[in-house]
């Protein structure tokens, strides 16, 4: 038996030695080389207006579904999470599956955009994007897909103005019960958190401030992640994936001051969306008015939007064709990376395909 075990020891020792060598060699390369180019799928910029950008991705098939898709990114992060690198891009996957894809993405708000409020996002940016998608495609109907707070903006728009044009609404991990976002509740505890002071001091809410808030949701993750990177420096695929996600996660955008003040007060403090008291520019929001087919996808291990925060949404929507799907994964791995390629992307394409003709 000892004869059988011997090769294991040598194999293991050789493997570890090889990996140690590779770590040394590739470790130097890691610091000397730039990360992979992200968000590089060919596209046209249709609108570039301050904090708002609208992209149209070049179709990858000769025949597309009639209804175009508008992806709406969360205002805290960059939209390239939907378009990492070829083979790991939701945008590319949708294009190859025969969809015409647009994305509403965000730039850091300028200092003179500190006065932008929720109404600007819901009643100006989103309608402008939808109107341009209609003009570009010649179609009246549009499918809107919102991620995280992009989902919240999509819900607000859909309830207030979506009815004539909204063909389908898809939300990824979208919170409606903000009292269940416990860590953010602590962060924004109204007894201690002076949102007015923050906005009045900085104008816009700094990205660093939000980055720290996200980082503190998982205090051990950064240290453990860096140790894992060191351990896996020999593995090109691991390093590539680490660099992509690390860059995206640290690329947190500032938020327009008034928008941050308003969302903190109305959602984090007063939980108005859940209580049915939410308004945008004085117009009451009733999610029951959303009657277009609706899909909500949540993640089992979401540390940013826990299930309890997103679960009530499905019952608040007025559509009869509606579905809630919970998948394995976390807030980010739900929509990007190997987990998403296997789970979310095919589900999304199948669900949308049946409703996009």
């Amino acid at each position: 038996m000892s004869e059988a075990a011997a090769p294991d020891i040598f194999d293991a020792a050789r493997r570890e030695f090889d990996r140690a060598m590779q770590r040394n060699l590739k470790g130097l390369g890691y610091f000397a080389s730039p990360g992979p180019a992200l968000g590089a799928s060919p596209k046209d910029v249709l609108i570039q207006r301050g904090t708002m950008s609208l992209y149209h991705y070049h179709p990858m098939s000769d025949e597309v579904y009639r209804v175009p898709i508008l992806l709406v990114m969360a205002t805290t992060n960059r939209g390239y999470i939907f378009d990492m690198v070829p083979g790991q891009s939701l945008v590319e996957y949708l294009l190859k599956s025969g969809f015409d894809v647009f994305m509403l993405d965000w730039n850091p708000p300028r200092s003179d955009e500190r006065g932008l409020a929720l109404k600007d996002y819901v009643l100006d940016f989103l309608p402008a994007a939808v109107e341009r998608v209609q003009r570009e495609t010649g179609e009246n109907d549009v499918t809107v897909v919102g991620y995280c707070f992009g989902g919240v903006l999509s819900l607000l728009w859909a309830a207030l103005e979506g009815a004539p044009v909204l063909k389908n609404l898809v939300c990824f991990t979208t919170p409606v019960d903000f009292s269940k976002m416990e860590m953010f509740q602590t962060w924004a505890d109204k007894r201690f958190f002076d949102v007015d002071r923050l906005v009045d001091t900085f104008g816009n809410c700094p990205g660093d401030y939000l980055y720290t808030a996200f980082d503190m949701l998982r205090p051990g993750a950064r240290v453990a992640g860096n140790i894992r990177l060191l351990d896996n420096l020999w593995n090109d695929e691991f390093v590539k994936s680490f660099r992509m996600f690390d860059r995206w996660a640290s690329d947190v955008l500032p938020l327009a001051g008034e928008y941050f003040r308003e969302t903190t007060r109305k959602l984090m403090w007063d939980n108005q969306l859940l209580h049915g008291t939410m308004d945008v520019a004085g117009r009451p929001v009733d999610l029951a008015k959303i009657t277009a087919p609706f899909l909500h996808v949540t993640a089992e291990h979401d540390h940013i939007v826990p299930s309890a925060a997103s679960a009530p949404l499905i019952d608040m929507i007025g559509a009869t064709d509606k579905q809630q799907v919970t998948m394995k994964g976390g807030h980010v791995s739900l929509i990007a990376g190997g987990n998403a390629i296997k789970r979310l992307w095919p589900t999304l394409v199948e669900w949308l395909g049946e409703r996009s003709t």
Partner: protein
Amino acid sequence: MAVPPIPDPGAMLRDMLGQWESMANNFGGEVMKSGEFGRALQGANAAAMRAQAATHQMMDRALAAANMPSRSEVEDISARLARIEEAVQRIEGLLMAQAGIAPPERPRPKRTRTPPGKAA
């Protein structure tokens, strides 16, 4: 008699790292949910904001005394330039449309696709 597999120290360390991360996240999470933490955190944030506001004020005064623009003034100019650029782009687009100069036509795929199961 079966020989037990040789323990892999690398795998053990990786497993320990996973456990430590999980513990750190849980423990840190519990600490951060407490009111005391929230009070301390926001106290520190408020102090940092006061310090930053005071620094800005001081810098603005010093720069004004040296007859130089402050950072916020430069940012304002930059924002105004960006707005002007956007306006020029819009005007350019309108003028091109009026003059009948269309942007290069991209191939427009047919919008007749059906889901695989329903294909004719």
